[in-house]
């Protein structure tokens, strides 16, 4: 478990990369906005590196952090 990660989600084999034909695994990713970076763990394709952002995260925490940064 990456202590620096601000958010973690494990796809538990439910997501499959259609380009590579393999399941997505929990992998290290980073969100970037207005020169700020947030380390997270998201479903990632181990072969091509596709990073998946679930809808609930995009419209939830990601949106609220965007708004917080916009007000800085």
């Amino acid at each position: 478990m990456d202590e620096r990660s601000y958010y973690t989600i494990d796809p538990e084999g439910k997501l499959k990369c259609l380009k590579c034909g393999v399941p997505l695994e929990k992998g290290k990713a980073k969100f970037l906005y207005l020169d700020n970076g947030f380390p997270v763990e998201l479903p990632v394709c181990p072969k091509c590196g596709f990073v998946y952002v679930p809808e609930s995260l995009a419209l939830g925490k990601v949106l609220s952090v965007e708004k917080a940064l916009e007000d800085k």
Partner: protein
Amino acid sequence: MTRHPGDTRRLIDLADLQPGARVLDLGAGDGDGVRLLRSLGYDAAGIDRIAAEDVEQGDLLHTTFASNSFDAVMSECTFFLTGDVPGAMRESARILKIGGKLLLADIFFEDPEPLLEAAGFRLIHKEDWTKAWREYYLRSIWEGTAEVCPVPKGKSTYWMLIARKD
């Protein structure tokens, strides 16, 4: 308005002040620093550009306090904002008694020691909080908790400094 990594408490503890010491919070924001100092038994006052509860309105570079009237001056993330760090240091030196301490937690783009010496201070303690500060800032944004003064562009260091007026 602004919270600081490592806590104001750490800065105060580092200074090792006498009980009942007269302390000024320069750039006191919403007054939390003043109230913290008072809760620790110090005779505290605070000034800022805009008045607030327990904070008087005042100009940090030209306070109306008499010379040699404070045992300590504390300032977090404010000197840098005045645009005149040497001036802020000189004013702090003026209102401090001889032997009084400056408690400074702020962003520096250059070595702070020469600046302190030019204003009549001797640096007695310094800690580099840059890494902790950046992480604290990002974490507080992500969690949506109390904010921390943001990270500026360019190579800067967040120092916690204790200096004595000689």
